[in-house]
């Protein structure tokens, strides 16, 4: 009979599972086989008369539609080189030349770009890819892709570029496919995409609403479903330049976007990857319309991190940036809730959180706002500060707490004295209550002992 059940024979520590799987070069139907026709070497554009250039240009573009397999480093070296040289030539051609962007050329350019860029992104080699820790998997066909992106950008930025012709070929379907590419793990690709999309948004007014809506969808999917998308930072950068250009008064749809999309982006675990760009967007909104301050601050307080200290520090940094530009009237509206949260942060056992919160008192503008409203803020902050002055383990924090208390004393001595006195009175009461409780337990304990002794002494004596 077999030696035991199947389950017993599974050995979780078999060396087998530790052996690294060698990457098998997977053939892909995307790439042409070597049996196909080799790329023909065409004459250089500068060597042909200008009347023939358009046709040659188009032929070269079509040639570049052929894709090569870079996963296999030795396949088709000659073809790859021809394509690379051609692409290079094309980049120079549209950069230098005038009048080369004729109408027939537009669809050919878009076809070439589509053929090269639009592809299903492969699943990540590292299924546990942590964008903060791990190096990204770079795009293997970058030698060609880079030139295609370069070409695309020069095309869009060319002085000869005509959006009226361009809009026939750069349509919603094209933009949608472009947006999908933002999930690429290769940061160089995302950087190009960012600039490309920025230019497209700038030049095609008819596509703007569509682009915004699609970005909206990507973000919402990211926040509420997948928590995975590599291009959030780049898209936010583009949005930053869009927000910066909003006309006043702000359209309500933009305000909705701020509250329903930008604020929830703060919830995601990997916030640190795009926090700089996100904070910039938020602050730009507030600079455009100060009345948005209240919903923004309320939103941030709602999403305040409860278990991740690093995120708390980030939030505190963002709040300071918001306070840097806040109007005094708006400050008065949010001060109570905000400082209640700050009081909690100051009491945090995580020294970085406490530190970052206390550093607000080194900001002259914030200090002036606090001074104007000290009768509201001091009572909120005082108990936490006073407690921390006696309890915190970290000497740096204790020094910062001293600074803050001294600042408060200089701001309003009378209030400071009142708060000190009432805090002490509270503590006395608490101590008294604790003492009474201890006494009660002691008495109960003694009664219990007494009762047991009575019982032990004899049943007749026991009640």
């Amino acid at each position, binding site marked *: 009979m077999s030696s035991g059940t199947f389950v017993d024979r599974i050995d979780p520590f078999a060396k087998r599972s530790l052996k690294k799987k060698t990457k098998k070069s997977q053939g892909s139907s995307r790439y042409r086989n070597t049996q196909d026709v080799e790329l023909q070497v065409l004459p250089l554009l500068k060597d042909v008369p200008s009347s023939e250039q358009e046709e040659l240009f188009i032929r070269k573009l079509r040639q570049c539609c052929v894709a090569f397999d870079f996963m296999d480093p030795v396949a088709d070296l000659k073809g790859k080189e021809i394509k690379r040289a051609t692409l290079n030539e094309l980049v120079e051609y549209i950069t230098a030349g005038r009048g080369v962007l004729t109408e027939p050329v537009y669809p050919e350019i878009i076809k070439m770009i589509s053929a090269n860029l639009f592809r299903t992104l492969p699943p990540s080699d590292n299924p546990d890819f942590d964008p903060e820790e791990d190096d990204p998997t770079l795009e293997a066909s970058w030698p060609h892709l880079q030139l295609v992106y370069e070409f695309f950008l020069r095309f869009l930025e060319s002085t000869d570029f*005509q959006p009226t012709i361009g809009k026939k070929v750069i349509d919603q379907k094209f933009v949608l496919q472009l947006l999908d590419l933002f999930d690429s793990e290769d940061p160089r690709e995302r950087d190009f995409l960012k600039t490309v999309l920025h230019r497209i948004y700038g*030049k095609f007014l008819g596509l703007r609403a*569509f682009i915004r809506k699609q970005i909206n969808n990507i973000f919402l999917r990211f926040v509420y479903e997948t928590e995975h998308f590599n291009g959030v930072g780049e898209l936010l950068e583009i949005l930053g330049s869009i927000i910066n250009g909003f006309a006043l008064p702000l359209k309500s749809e933009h305000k909705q976007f701020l509250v329903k999309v930008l604020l929830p982006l703060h919830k995601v675990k990997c916030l640190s990857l795009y926090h700089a760009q996100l904070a*910039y967007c938020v602050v730009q909104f507030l600079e455009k319309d100060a009345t948005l301050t209240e919903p923004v601050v309320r939103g941030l307080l709602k999403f305040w991190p409860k278990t991740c200290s690093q995120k708390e520090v*980030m939030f505190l940094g963002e709040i300071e940036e918001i306070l840097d530009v806040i109007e005094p009237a708006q400050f008065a509206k949010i001060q109570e809730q905000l400082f209640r949260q700050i009081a909690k942060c100051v009491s945090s056992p995580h020294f970085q959180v406490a530190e970052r919160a206390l*550093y607000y008192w080194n900001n002259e503008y914030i200090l002036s706002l606090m001074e104007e409203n000290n009768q509201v803020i001091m009572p909120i902050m005082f108990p936490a500060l006073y407690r921390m002055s006696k309890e915190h383990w970290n000497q*740096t924090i204790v*020094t910062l707490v001293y600074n803050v208390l001294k600042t408060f004393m200089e701001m309003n*001595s009378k209030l400071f004295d009142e708060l000190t006195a009432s805090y002490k009175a509270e503590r006395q009461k608490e101590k008294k209550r604790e003492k009474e409780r201890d006494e009660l337990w002691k008495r109960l304990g003694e009664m219990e002992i007494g009762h047991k002794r009575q019982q032990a002494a004899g049943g007749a004596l026991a009640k």
Partner: protein
Amino acid sequence: MRCRFTLRSRRSSTMLRSGARHPDADEGASTSGERDCRTRQLHATLAEYLQLEHKFQPKLCLPANGENGEVTTGARDGAAHVLRCLKVWFDLPADVLISAINLFDRFLTKMKVRPCHIPCITVSCMNIAMDEHAAVTKTSRKVTVEELVSVSQSACTAGDVARMSRVIADKLSLAERCSVTAIHWLRLLRTLVARAAAELQLRALVLPESELINLLEIAVCDAGCVNSRTSELALVLVYHQLEKELVELSRAAAEGAGEGQAVPEDAYYLYEFAAQLQAHCHMTDASLVSARNLVRGVISRYEARQAAPQRQRLVWRLSERTLKVLRPTDRLTSLLPTIEEQHFAVDVTPKRTRSGSESSESEETSDWPRSPVLPVYCDN
């Protein structure tokens, strides 16, 4: 008509009513014999304080501004505030604070010091005051010199403070017993007035010591009050509090609240008592009135909750990790050029003339979701 200071007055029968007890009465002084003994003790203390008063009286003449590199009144007040903050921080008794400020003022009276030495001198005075207090109360010090130095951010070492303390002690010829400061005067005069009030059966007058001491702290933190005679300062404070309570009582009586008694006429005999004290201590009308005005000014500023004119420059030290990224946008290295809404965008390439049809607003369809419920997938 100035009569010799005594608790006896024309209305001796009311004042020496025996058996009467007042909440403020000294503990256990139930018999008139014990009370008389206590009275004699107080009188003796008063005489002693009067004799020693001039020894502990500062006489500062500091400029208002520091053009000649001198210590200004502002700097002196700043030092007093540092001492007050340290008192709160370390939970020290008010005696230590008043004593420390007194030492500071006396030292500055005797020596012309440079502004850069003020922090060290300040901490050293606190250091001496703490030692004195420990000696008098026969308790050990709660706070070390090192702690004092590090918390106060005075940029000197414990050794500097120890040396400076010796210099100060030497210059001021500090005797074994601790100084007789404003707080001693305050307590003494308060006790005397409270006993006088008790004899007049004025149970409603409390004169809480803690409040008086708080006002004293505020007063001595202001350079304006420094040169007033300590006894005058104390007397003015006690009577300020007294007036406040009398006003409260008459207001309560007028509103019909409280015990319903009007302020008894006898209360105003306390002013006669003040006159007797004034005479006994040889306080001139002019200086007393001046002290009263100074104190009123300080207290009114305090009640108005004004910010202090001087603010200490504090050291804000952060950990490396936190300093690296203070504001999230610090990490942004570049920004994309702004795209104006409703306008053809300008990117890095040179401007080109606008083609009219492009700026048409009608092309832009605004289909941002308007309803509060956002569709996640939106098919075009």
